[in-house]
């Protein structure tokens, strides 16, 4: 019986092609919008997350420098900006590294330098650091070795190339053992890093690394103002950050002179902001789905009126109130369901097209797709209820007198 009802409702709906397509359009657009917008929201959340995670999920960054946004900074409005705090010493970096819960620390000095091989040159990011850098930031070696304690101690002119820089300067040749000039000074290439997957935005492979002591010599002493640290266990980062802050406060004497930030804290903030945005987008799109439902209700009401006589005939030959109710409910469910299916296909296609156009990634989630389709069916059911009830409650004698 129900199979026959569904089959016949397809036929009834298909007998009014233009009207059916126009009615479904509301649901199609609604479902497609929900899926596409949520997919794009999820996609951007995922790419931000992976970008931050690629830096190392246990990463903590300590910066020394005047921070006007730190707690208690607002009171000093009249006084001139205070003199910058002194940079950290090497022994202070070692002290940070031996903090409870911290497994490694690397001073990081960042700048841009011109790298040269023979006549070809390349403008590249250059970091001055120590041997812990690669493990803290999650880089692996493709060839050669990384910076050793001796390189740092002796300020050796040695350089480790990111895979991007290695490819730009040497093509397919192995650069290990060759000479690269940094702002004109010759450096020994001791290692090449393996490629890290590039997520949206910056390429994490276009850079080079030298000992921070050597960096001080090449660029003039700027001192250590930034230290990357690695937490032994990312579950405890909040406590680790507190312990690092205690040490820095002891050395510098003011909470405005340093910041300590855990990558995972940024991550959780960003992902919660993103989740809210995604929900909001999905909510806005759902409204269009409800509008689609009103379209279904409108057309079903028209259909019930037009088919008053048919309802009278069906009742005369034995259709019960429930039979008629079921018939019209199935019709609106079929309208919403078919519209929903097309909407799912359109939404998936759409999110890929937009993702390609915006060079963003789209993450179509199966639960979200099922939810959008289920919502379309629910809309069909809810908005079909009134027209179907109207049809079901028609008095057969009166319905048969209508022409």
């Amino acid at each position: 019986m129900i199979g026959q009802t569904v089959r016949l409702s397809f036929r009834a709906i298909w007998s009014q092609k233009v009207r059916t397509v126009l009615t479904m359009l509301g649901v199609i657009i609604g479902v497609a919008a929900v899926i596409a917008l949520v997919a794009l929201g999820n996609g951007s959340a995922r790419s931000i997350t992976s970008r931050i995670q690629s830096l190392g999920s246990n990463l903590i960054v300590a910066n020394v420098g005047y921070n006007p946004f730190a707690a208690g900074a607002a009171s000093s409005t009249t006084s001139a900006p205070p003199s910058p705090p002194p940079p950290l010493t090497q022994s202070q970096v070692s002290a940070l590294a031996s903090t409870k819960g911290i497994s490694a620390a690397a001073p990081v000095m960042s700048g841009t330098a011109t790298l040269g091989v023979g006549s070809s040159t390349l403008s590249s990011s250059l970091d001055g650091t120590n041997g812990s850098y690669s493990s803290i930031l999650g880089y692996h070696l493709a060839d050669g070795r990384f910076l050793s304690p001796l390189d740092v101690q002796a300020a050796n002119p040695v350089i480790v190339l990111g895979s991007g820089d290695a490819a730009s300067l040497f093509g397919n040749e192995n650069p290990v053992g060759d000479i690269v000039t940094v702002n004109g000074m010759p450096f020994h290439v001791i290692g090449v890093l393996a490629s890290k997957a590039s997520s949206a935005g910056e390429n994490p492979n276009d850079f080079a690394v030298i000992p921070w002591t050597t960096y001080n010599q090449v660029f003039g002493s700027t001192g250590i103002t930034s230290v990357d640290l690695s937490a032994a266990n990312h579950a405890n980062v909040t406590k680790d950050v507190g312990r690092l802050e205690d040490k820095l406060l002891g050395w510098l004497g003011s909470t405005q002179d340093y910041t300590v930030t855990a990558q995972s804290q940024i991550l959780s903030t960003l992902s919660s902001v993103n989740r809210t945005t995604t929900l909001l987008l999905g909510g806005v799109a759902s409204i269009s789905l409800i509008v689609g439902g009103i379209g279904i209700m409108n057309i079903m009401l028209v259909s019930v009126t037009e088919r008053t006589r048919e309802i009278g005939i069906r009742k005369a030959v034995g259709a019960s109130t429930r039979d008629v109710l079921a018939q019209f409910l199935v019709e609106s469910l079929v309208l919403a369901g078919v519209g929903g299916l097309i909407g799912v296909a359109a939404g998936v296609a759409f999110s890929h097209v937009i993702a390609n156009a915006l060079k963003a990634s789209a993450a179509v989630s199966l639960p979200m797709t099922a939810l959008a389709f289920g919502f379309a069916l629910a809309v069909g059911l809810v908005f079909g209820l009134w027209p179907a009830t109207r049809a079901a409650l028609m008095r057969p004698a009166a319905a048969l007198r209508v022409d």
Partner: protein
Amino acid sequence: MAAIAILDKVSKRYPMAGQEVPALREISFTVQSGEFVSIMGPSGSGKTTLMHILGCLDVPSSGSYVLNGIEVSALSEMRLTDVRRKQIGFVFQNFNLISTLNAVENVALPLVYQRLSQAEQHERAAAALEHVGLKERMKYRPNQLSGGQQQRVAIARAMVTQAPIILADEPTGNLDSQTGHEVLELFAKLSRDGHTIVMITHDHEVATWGQRTIEIKDGRIVADREVVAQ
């Protein structure tokens, strides 16, 4: 012979502009099983109203109506549906086929609501169509059939459930005399096969096809007589 339909002082009043307009006034008659009764009367005399009550599409305002042993004048809509489903076959003046269904599906419609299997629906609908001489037109839509053919499909639909009583409201009203004649032949055949038939008409000629004629005027019975065989 057993009585299949007994009407006793059946009245029907329609509410109109705050008043009640009487359409039927104290109609009483009995239809015996196997009888072919014609109900005659001028336009507006209450024929369609009477058929709707006979067919349990509507209930009387007062009076009693016993159909096949069931007092139906006070039944709920749910019980009336059940009575219609089992007891009555309808034929209408304007055929009243469903345009999106083909001939065999239209005939099978009452069987759908009797929850028969699709195979049985098809088998019985095809047999009924064969009975009215439309075996070759099973897959035709109503708009691909002539008026006479459509009415024969409607008759097949009325008889497919083997209902004890067939009600026809002006079955020849929209047909020319030739096709009207064919349709009446079909009713005569159904009558010979033992079906009980109540046929409404305003045409004297058509009324003589029945065995008995009831004449109504202004909602009242003015004559009730046996047709003299010619």
